[in-house]
C-alpha cells in the first residue's frame, strides 16, 4: 500500500516501506516549459527536508528541486539526466528524480494529498 503525497514546491513523493521515490509534478513541468537539463543528488549523500536536492533548467531559467523529506539517496534516475525531455513527457511516473531511504516517516504528515495539491496548484498558478 503506497500513497502519493505532494509538496508546496511541486514535488511528488511516493513511499514504499521506508524508501521514498521523489519527482516533480506535471503542474511544475507545465510552469517550467521544456526541460533541457537535470541535475540530481549524489547516490549515498544525505538530504534534509526542504533542502535543495537537484536542479532543472528550461531554455529560460534554472530552478532548484527540493526534497520534501530527509534521508539518504539510494538511487537516482540517470535516464532523465541523459534525456531531460522525458521529464515533460512522463513527470509523475517514469521520470522520477531520486529515491531516499527516509529517516522519519512523520515528515510525510505535513504534505498534501492529491486533492489538496490540485487545489493548491490551481491557486498558485505562477
Amino acid at each position: 500500500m503506497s500513497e502519493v503525497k505532494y509538496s508546496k514546491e511541486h514535488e511528488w513523493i511516493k513511499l514504499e516501506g521506508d524508501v521514498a521515490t521523489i519527482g516533480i509534478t506535471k503542474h511544475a513541468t507545465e510552469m517550467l516549459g521544456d526541460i533541457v537539463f537535470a541535475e540530481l543528488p549524489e547516490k549515498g549523500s544525505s538530504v534534509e527536508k526542504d533542502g535543495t536536492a537537484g536542479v532543472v533548467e528550461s531554455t529560460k531559467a534554472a530552478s532548484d528541486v527540493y526534497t520534501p523529506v530527509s534521508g539518504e539517496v539510494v538511487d537516482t534516475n540517470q535516464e532523465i539526466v541523459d534525456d531531460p525531455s522525458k521529464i515533460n513527457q512522463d513527470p509523475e511516473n517514469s521520470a522520477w528524480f531520486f529515491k531516499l531511504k527516509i529517516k522519519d516517516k512523520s515528515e510525510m504528515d505535513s504534505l498534501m494529498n492529491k486533492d489538496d495539491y490540485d487545489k493548491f496548484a490551481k491557486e498558485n498558478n505562477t
Partner: protein
Amino acid sequence: METKKTSLYQLHQDCNAKFVEFAGYQMPIQYSEGIVEEHKFTRNHSGIFDVSHMGQLFIYGGDELIKDLEKIFPLDLKNLKLNHSKYSFLMDKDAGIQDDLIITKIDEGFLIILNAACKDNDFKILKELLKEKYKMVLDENRSLIAIQGPKSSQILNEVVDGVKDLNFMSGNWFLFDNQKVYITRSGYTGEDGFEISILNNYADKLTRELINKGSKLVGLGARDTLRLEAGLCLYGHDLDKDKTPVEANLKWAISKERISKGDFIGSDIIIKQLNDGVTKIRVGIKPEGRIIAREKTKIFNQSDVHIGEITSGTFGPSVNGPVAMGYVENKFSKKNTKVFLEVRGKKYAANICSLPFYKKSYVKGVN
C-alpha cells in the same frame, strides 16, 4: 507606467500566449507548443514574430542628412543604395554601444529599426545630434512583423506578391489589402526571412493570413534561442555602453572607407582598438556536456584565473546542447581554448568556439 500592448495582442491571446513584460510591453514569451517546438518549427518551416515593440524611426532628408548621419554611424551611407540595409550601432564618444540597429535607405530619407528598450533614448540622442534639422518620426502607428524560416518566402509571397524577389538586406514597398507595407529581407534568427512594417490596423489581418498559409506564431523565448544559435547579439546583454563594436567582434559592420577617414562619434577609440588590439573580446563558448551557463557566469582559464563572463547562455534546440557567448581576455579568445565555467559553485569545462553555433541559410541573391 502602464504596460503597452501591440496590435497583435488579441491574436496572441487567441493563440494561448504566455505573456511577459518586456521593455514596457506585454509580449508573448511562448505559445502552447513551447519554446523548443517553436524554435524547431522556425528552423524547419516558418515562424512569425511580433516585434512591434521595436522602434521604427523615420528620418526625412537628402544629401545633408546623409552627411550628418555619417558623423554618427560608421557607415558609408553616401554609397548605400536605395532600399538597401546595413547593421550598425549608435555609439557614445568612447565608442560604447548605446544601441544596435538596422538602417535602410528609403526614398525620403532613412528608416532605422531600434531596440524597444533603447528607442526613446535613441530618439533623444539622435534629435540632439542632428540639431533638430530634420523631421524625425518614431512611428507608433506601424507594427513590425517578422517571418523567418525556409518556407517564409513562399508563404509571404502568397500573401504579398513579389517579396520572393527581394535580396538579403534589401527592401521595398509592397501592397497588402491596398495598403503600403515596407518589407525587408532580413531578420534575427539565422534563417532566411522578412520584416514587415505595416499600419497597426492591418497587422492582425496580415498575421492571420500568414498563419492560414502554414506559418505559426513564435514567442520571444524561441527568438532568444534562435538568435543565440545564430551567434547574434542581444542588446543589454551581449552589448552595452561598456563594450565597443571592436570588443563585440562586430568590426565587419564598420565601413573600411570610414575608418580610413575617421570623423564619426567614437572613431578615435575604434581606430585605436583596430590598430592596438583590445583587452577583452566577444567569443562563442561551447560547454562540454549538458551544463547550461547563463548570463553573468564567470569564466576561468586552466590556471583558475578569472578571465571573463558569459553574457548570454541557454540550451540550443537545433544544436541539441548548451550554447553561450561572452567576453574573455583577448589572449584566451582563440578557438578551441579550454576554459572553465562556474555554475552553482562548481567548475565545468568548456571550449572557445567560432560563431555561429548554427549555420545560417540566408538567401544572398535570387535574381
